[in-house]
């Protein structure tokens, strides 16, 4: 760890923690409709849509509304991709997207995963980027936030039948939180150098001629293969380059703010147009954690005890700091293979990193983007050292609860908190309670489902991929690393992160379908039980706090919750991790 790395981490956390309270307070007040402008602005919208804003929903109706809303989102995104060739705003004449890729992308953006099997600048028309993908960036983020708000209401209310009105909640989050911040943010990014246009791609002359190897093509335009079946390359050179254009800044802003992570370009935030400067990079990192961090305060305020929120934030911050330090530490280590070739080991592992950002920023960004379910990248996680790559993998496998996705991180963490309270409640001899709500059979059922869904999707998905021919076909790297790539893909999809170990060729019908399924159930297989729990908690009486009540705001609880997240979240993945990154590391350093 260099001084730069420590300073960067310290500065990042300090600024982040300063934003938590004001942002959290604003969120709480907006969601409660405490500001005068809120009701005035939105009431015409409700009249237009025929929404009965004062009518609250029971949890089942709320969940149904959320599911319906998102299912319609999938249809819209799918349709726009499949029809983009005939629709306007397509200066590059992009073809219609294949059915399996469109299916995968539709679910990916609706589930806030933003896994991208495609390359943005070579697949999507501007209309698709703006109307399908950017719109879903807003709506999927809003979905996550309203679900956690409903869950918090479950804790905050007592003997209540309802958890809120889904339409009103979605409107408020989008209109007063996501939109205004995104507008300011996009303008800032343009100021830093991001582009925002609808132009056709530009052909430019490069400063020097680039020499490269290209596959030799036969008369039919097919690559020529030698007798072993390998592609034959021939030297080629070029003096021109195509620069992709597009409405980048507007999509970039919500991509980070809503922990979406789906880049406009294939290179994602490593692309200079998406992330032009060190300042924009720092702000991008902050904006990923802005809402997940603030929601902790919102939680504390809504349940009437801000200490509860700070405790949850403390758990997230401590775990995050540990993971970030690990990632930066391992990336600072040199790859022995390269050291052997005479590379100065003090450079650390620069493979796959953007030289503009370097090791500390890349390590920190990678931890942030995977701790939160963002998935934007500024470096190729595939090229990390084995244990450096283990950190993003672990971030995701913990269930995306260390800050996590907007909303989804907190509801995931609260599910773990319920579990922690259940075990510790038993240990002190009381029926477990959290925030005055008894945790009983029904809650344990829902908690179990929420905790079961993602590991099952990851483990079974990976297993299917490694034994089927279609699954193995996508692997680019031999050995244990190939296994890590598949494990990473399913961990990313089922936990709705969206980042990738780039080595896997995942834009195939097999992976598009498998990962699509993993993303959908990884998202809604958790949301539905969480909402069910919200309903059941809201209906309960609130118990009085006594000396015998386990305090859930002190250091003891923080330690306990960290322990439960690590133990329950990680034990499922130990064998898989041992056969992936761990053995990679052992083999790499054992050989040299």
């Amino acid at each position: 760890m260099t001084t730069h790395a420590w300073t960067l981490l310290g500065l990042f956390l300090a600024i982040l923690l300063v934003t938590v309270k004001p942002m959290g307070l604003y969120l709480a007040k907006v969601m409660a409709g405490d500001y005068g402008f809120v009701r005035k602005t939105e009431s015409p919208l409700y009249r237009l849509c025929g929404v009965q804003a004062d009518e609250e929903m029971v949890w089942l109706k709320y969940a149904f509304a959320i599911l319906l809303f998102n299912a319609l989102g999938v249809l819209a995104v799918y349709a726009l991709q499949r029809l983009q060739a005939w629709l306007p705003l397509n200066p590059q004449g992009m073809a219609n997207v294949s059915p399996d890729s469109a299916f995968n992308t539709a679910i990916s953006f609706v589930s806030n995963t933003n896994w991208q099997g495609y390359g943005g600048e070579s697949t999507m028309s501007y209309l698709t980027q703006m109307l399908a993908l950017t719109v879903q960036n807003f709506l999927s983020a809003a979905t996550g936030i309203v679900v956690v708000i409903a869950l918090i209401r479950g804790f905050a209310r007592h003997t209540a039948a309802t958890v809120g009105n889904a339409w009103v909640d979605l409107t408020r989050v989008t209109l007063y939180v996501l939109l205004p911040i995104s507008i300011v943010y996009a303008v800032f990014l343009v100021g830093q150098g991001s582009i925002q246009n609808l132009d056709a791609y530009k052909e430019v002359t490069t400063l020097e001629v680039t020499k490269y190897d290209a596959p030799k093509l036969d008369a039919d335009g097919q690559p020529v293969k030698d007798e072993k079946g390998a592609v034959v390359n021939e030297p080629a050179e070029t003096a021109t380059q195509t620069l992709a254009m597009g409405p980048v800044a507007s999509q970039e802003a919500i991509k980070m703010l809503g922990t979406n992570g789906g880049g406009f370009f294939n290179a994602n935030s490593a692309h200079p147009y998406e992330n032009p400067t060190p300042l924009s990079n720092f702000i991008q990192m902050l904006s990923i954690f802005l809402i997940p961090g603030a929601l902790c305060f919102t939680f504390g305020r809504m349940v009437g005890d801000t200490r509860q929120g700070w405790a949850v934030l403390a758990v997230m911050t401590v775990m995050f700091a540990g993971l970030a330090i690990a990632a930066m530490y391992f990336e600072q280590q040199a790859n022995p293979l390269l050291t052997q070739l005479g590379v100065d080991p003090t450079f650390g592992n620069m493979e796959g990193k953007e030289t503009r950002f370097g090791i500390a920023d890349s390590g920190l960004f990678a931890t942030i983007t995977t701790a939160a379910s963002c998935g934007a990248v500024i470096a190729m996680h595939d090229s990390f050292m084995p244990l450096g790559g283990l950190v993003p993998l672990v971030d995701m496998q913990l269930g995306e609860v260390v800050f996590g996705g907007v909303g989804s991180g907190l509801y995931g963490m609260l599910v773990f908190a319920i579990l922690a309270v259940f075990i510790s409640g038993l240990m002190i001899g009381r029926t477990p309670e959290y925030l005055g709500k008894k945790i009983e059979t029904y809650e344990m059922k829902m908690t179990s489902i929420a905790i079961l869904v993602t590991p099952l999707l990851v483990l079974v998905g990976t297993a299917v991929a490694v034994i089927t021919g279609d699954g193995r076909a996508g692997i680019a790297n031999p050995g244990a690393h190939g296994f890590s790539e598949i494990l990473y893909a399913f961990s990313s999809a089922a936990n709705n992160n969206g980042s990738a170990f780039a080595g896997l060729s995942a834009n195939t019908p097999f992976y598009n379908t498998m990962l699509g399924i993993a993303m959908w159930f990884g998202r809604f297989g958790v949301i539905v039980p969480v909402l069910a729990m919200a309903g059941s908690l809201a209906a309960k009486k609130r118990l009085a706090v006594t000396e015998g009540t386990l305090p859930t705001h002190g250091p003891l609880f923080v330690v306990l919750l960290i322990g439960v997240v690590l133990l329950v979240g990680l034990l499922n993945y130990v064998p898989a991790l041992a056969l992936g990154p761990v053995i990679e590391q052992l083999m790499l350093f054992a050989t040299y």
Partner: protein
Amino acid sequence: MTRKTFTLFDPTLAVPAIAESFRKLNPAVQWRNPVMFVVYIGSILTTILWVQALGGQGEAPTGFILAVALWLWFTVLFANFAEALAEGRSKAQAASLRGLKKETWAKKLYEPHINAKWQMIPATDLRKGDVILVAAQEFIPADGEVIEGVASVDESAITGESAPVIRESGGDFSSVTGGTRVLSDWIIARVTVNPGETFVDRMIAMVENAKRQKTPNEIALTILLVALTIVFLAVTVTLLPYSLFSVDVAQSGTPVSITVLIALLVCLIPTTIAGLLSAIGVAGMSRMMQANVIATSGRAVEAAGDVDVLLLDKTGTITLGNRQASTFLPADGITEAELADAAQLASLADETPEGRSIVVLAKQRFKLRERDIHALDAHFVHFTAQTRMSGVNLGERQIRKGAAEAIKAFVEAEGGHFPKSVSGKVDDVARRGSTPLVVAESAGGKVRVLGVIELKDIVKGGIKERFAELRQMGIKTVMVTGDNRVTAAAIAAEAGVDDFLAEATPEAKLKLIRQYQTEGRLVAMTGDGTNDAPALAQADVAVAMNTGTQAAKEAGNMVDLDSNPTKLIEVVETGKQMLMTRGSLTTFSIANDIAKYFAIIPAAFVSTYPQLSALNVMGLASPSSAILSAVIFNALIIVFLIPLALKGVKYRPLGAATLLRQNLAVYGLGGIVAPFLGIKLIDVLIAAAGLA
């Protein structure tokens, strides 16, 4: 009768329990415990694999498969043994009660009075509503309510208390229990239960019922354990494809065997807690029974652990039953000795404990001996509800003692007046939480107030410390008394209760309980009288005294056979202990997985990736010995923890955070460290024996 107590592995219990462990291998029984059912299936599978290996097609060395299979069977049997042992202990307790259920005969009366005709019928033929006559030295054939007569009854068979108790019609001492014996006199009782519903029946059913109702927390915990089992099932099942893939890409080693996967699965799933879960539940009920409390359900016992308000009757629970004279406070112009003399005279014939205590005090203070009543030509005036005074007439001289109001009326009726200073003393005494008794004398047409006797409520020794403990547990104590506010406040302060309800009526009690419940608190109370029944029914945990009326017993969800109101505190502790034992063992069980991973993962994949031996931090001798050691540890730990499951984790009255910190250190950290040591030890033994 004394209850037989058993040492933990008492052969008289352990031997039948071993037999029972094998009987429990019935799949229908195993199915009730989903986690252990998985182990059961694993045992069958490995046995089949072993048989296959005997045929020469083994996926692993035959001896290794056999060893794993055997230890998996042991795991199942050990869990069965724990359950059987717990059940055996309870049954033994029940059996001593069953002795009471010997064939008895009943004298069934045709009409409910002593001279009516009766018929001898078997006790089992008695029905609710029948009227029976029980004479001296006869057993009471069924639970009932005395409607006529007074008798002393030996209830030691049920309560263990050798002193006989009085049972009489009317009031709160009218209830009799089947199986107890009338020692003197006779009673006529109306049978209140049908055969098979008596206390003894309920007690036996509670422990013998094979389909013991799981308590809510037990169900919630089972759900969690099943969820963990499903995840670990997925972990191990998917390991086979992972292993096949790894062997392919590394091009070395052999895929992991099914035997090893089953071993890993059994080690990972929470067998420790699952194997002991029902034993903990049975043992909890059994501990209640040892404390002479019958709970109608395990749910009630568990709820007791959650209680945060205790309503306690003042008399008998907080204070000794009787008030005692502590001071003489003479009126102006009267000496203390004069007052003591008059008070003693007025109390000579007063057989109430209060009356006796006045005589005793007079003797202590002024060496006043008891005088011969007949020599004095005394005529005693007994207490009546109308006059609310008692006293003595010595010829012309009338001495009266009684409540201030009553004496005032008496004095004023005789033409005297009640001095202000005495009123002041009366108030002072009341403020101290004592009861003032005023003594007045009328002689020769002159009436005067002599002074005040202070009757003090004696707070039980150690009760204040007990309440302080309860406060630390987060339990609020509320004293309920019929006394006025001033008196109640003083005693409440002395006893250290958190709150009190003075001038309590049954309605006020009910209202108080409801109020606490709307505040989100769980209320426990004890009661014995019929007028307690509504409050008992409303309370979350209601312990009825066995001496209480039938109505009270039916309204409560527990009955305390010793009729000791302080027992409530023990009930709360037992409830907590049950939950704590489950929670601690769950934590222990999950924490164990870390060490088991370190033992099994390197062993299972070392043939594919030799570098994985770096993870063999325990330095286990060989892959097969590592896997076997983990499996053996997993089986043996169940046996080691049986005593803990049966006795329960020790409960100490500490704050929630302190308690959690301690238990986390012991069962969390201990759960991480213990298997590292245990597995290593077993491995060393196996290696030394040259077995694997």
